[in-house]
């Protein structure tokens, strides 16, 4: 960087700087010292993170945060949620405002390499689609030539939209908002013909509309959207903890451990894999700088991956999303966790 540029930068940084100075230390120690985890989540997306009628945060992204809290403190409730818009999320993590970002964020090369961030895994394998009114008579995204499309700013969605229409030689006008609720409101008001987002979000949005059955999600999936938790680069211990919290949930599902039987299996199982995960055999938790019951705490308090999925997005939720790509690898899906050894 040239010296002139350095001087120029310095004039604008006071805000960022003060926050940055505070997070230079090890994240795990900071989290333990303050006694709770700060987790960045979506400001209202059913199934991923939204407050329920009692003001309690629910959703798969929220449960990932709870799992990390359970691993660190042995208590899944020791987490505070910071609702963030798409535009704010990465800066909030970079500046240390949140310890983990678990906010349906797509894993991309730029975010991994140029932004000083690390994705710890994939909570949900998603893809981008389009939501349109049924009476529009559109059956394929390729029929959308000349349409106005509502999209949220600062997302990979915005870029995929550009790529898709450009590569198919179609014209479109993007109507861009900062919050997903605003895109939905504009779509409902008729400002756009189509709403584009990750397909899971489209299903979540659809149940918020006045007449959900009058809207359809088009069959095209125009992108890969692996959504996962993100941490700052440069703190490998913390990176490991967040990464393995998710792996523990997937491994637990694979081993048939759920929140109901975790206690019994911990006490009586003779399977070495189960005993290792539950912390009865080996010092796996210590290697992560956690207690040995870290995974047991996650599964007994939050549940395994399958439970979390069905509760928030699948059969036990209003969204009724099929597990599809998010089935375990052994059942034809992509969810796969390295072994606890």
């Amino acid at each position, binding site marked *: 960087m040239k010296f002139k540029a350095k001087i120029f930068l310095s004039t604008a940084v006071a805000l*960022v700087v003060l926050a940055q100075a505070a997070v230079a230390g090890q994240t795990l120690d900071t989290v333990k010292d303050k006694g709770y985890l700060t987790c960045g989540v979506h400001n209202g997306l059913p199934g991923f993170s939204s407050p329920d009628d009692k003001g309690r945060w629910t959703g798969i992204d929220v449960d990932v945060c709870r799992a990390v809290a359970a691993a660190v403190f042995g208590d899944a409730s020791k987490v505070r949620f910071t609702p963030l818009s798409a535009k704010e999320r990465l800066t909030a993590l*970079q500046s240390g405002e949140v310890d983990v970002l678990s906010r349906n964020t797509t894993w991309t090369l730029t975010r991994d390499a140029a932004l000083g961030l690390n994705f710890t895994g994939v909570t949900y394998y998603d893809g981008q689609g389009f939501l349109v009114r049924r009476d529009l008579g559109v059956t394929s995204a390729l029929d959308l030539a000349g349409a106005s499309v509502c999209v949220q700013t600062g997302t990979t969605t915005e870029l995929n939209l550009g790529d898709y229409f*450009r590569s198919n030689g179609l014209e479109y006008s993007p109507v861009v908002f900062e919050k997903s609720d605003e895109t939905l409101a504009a779509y409902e008001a008729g400002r756009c013909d189509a709403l584009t987002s990750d397909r899971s979000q489209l299903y979540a949005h659809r149940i918020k509309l006045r007449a959900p059955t009058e809207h359809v999600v088009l069959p095209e999936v125009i992108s890969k959207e692996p959504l996962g938790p993100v941490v700052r680069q440069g703190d490998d211990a913390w990176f490991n903890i967040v990464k393995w919290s998710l792996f523990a949930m997937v491994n637990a599902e694979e081993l048939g451990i759920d929140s109901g039987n975790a206690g019994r299996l911990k006490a009586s199982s003779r399977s070495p894999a189960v005993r290792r995960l539950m912390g009865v055999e080996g010092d796996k938790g210590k290697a992560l700088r956690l207690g040995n019951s870290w995974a047991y705490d996650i599964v007994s308090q939050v549940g395994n991956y399958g439970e979390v999925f069905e509760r928030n997005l699948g059969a036990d939720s209003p969204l009724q999303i099929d597990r599809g790509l998010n089935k375990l690898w052994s059942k034809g899906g992509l969810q796969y966790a390295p072994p606890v050894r």
Partner: protein
Amino acid sequence: MRVWRDPRLRALLFQALVLAGVIGLALFILDNTLTNLERRGITSGFDFLSSTAGFGIIQTLVDFSEESSYGRAFLVGLLNTLLVSALGIALATFLGFLVGIARLSHNWLVSRLAATYIEVFRNIPLLLQIFFWYFAVLQTLPGPRQSLAVGDVVFLNVRGLYLPKPVPEESFWWIPATLSLSVLSIILLVRWARRRQDRTGRAFHSMYASLALLLGPLLVAALVTGFPVSWELPVLKGFNFRGGLVLIPEFMALLIALSVYTAAFIAEIVRAGILSVSHGQTEAAHALGLRPLQTLRLVVIPQAMRVIIPPLTNQYLNLTKNSSLAAAVGYPDLVSVFAGTVLNQTGQAIEVIAITMAVYLTISLTIAATMNWYNRRVALVER
């Protein structure tokens, strides 16, 4: 005598200490930021400006596509900010002067109406007004197929206002050429008239002559070249209207809210300016035989302007800075496109915010400098 007993030296010492403190803090911030950026592995620098943006923008005054660069997106945002600010300033000034003068009217109804306008729009937060125009007015309009239409020429719907677009033909250059010649001759005429009045005391009513000079040649030029402008009409094709000139609802909501809000403040400034000219001035002018309109034009307004200009500058600056509320309704201004979308896609917050702040500072200082220059021209010259 000791150093701290000498007030002059003591003052110098303290100033030096404060200066050193400020410089030290600045250096600390600079160093801390650079170290942290490096340690985090966050890319820095301005190279991102030339890489491909990949997203589309709904309103662009210059060519922009997904293949264009982030630098180009910056330009698009900047021009959109300047467009809404310039139009906002023009509209707010016009409306503000109108309401301000109406507020002083002797007609009870007119002055009450003006007062109500001022009190209502001045006291509601601007953001709410933008939301009102956008969500309550423009977003409740019918869809493209049920557009409100004036003839088959102008259409208004939830996607915006569609107007016929003038398309200049080949011989169009005659029109601006004639126009600039007319303007030049009007300036010369007015100067000559003023000099003659100064010398001989005889007034020359340049108003009608100017109007003739402006319209006459223009009409002749248009007739000779056969009206070299064709109109492109908006046509409903597929989902939307194509062709024509489109004012998107985001732009309209922002422009209306900014103008209406700022006009309320300008109206009060105009009223204060006119009231500041003492009634004795008017009476003296009448005694000299000036007619009421002449009194207003030659005596009251020039003196009122001295009071009006400085606070008016403030309102212009406010309007320009307030245009950054565009992000709330998704109008692609500098903050929304550059400090929003570009910041997010590149993640280079510090560079993007620094550039954005520098741009607003430059725009504001330019407006202030222009208005100060004008203020010096109309200011009272004291001898």
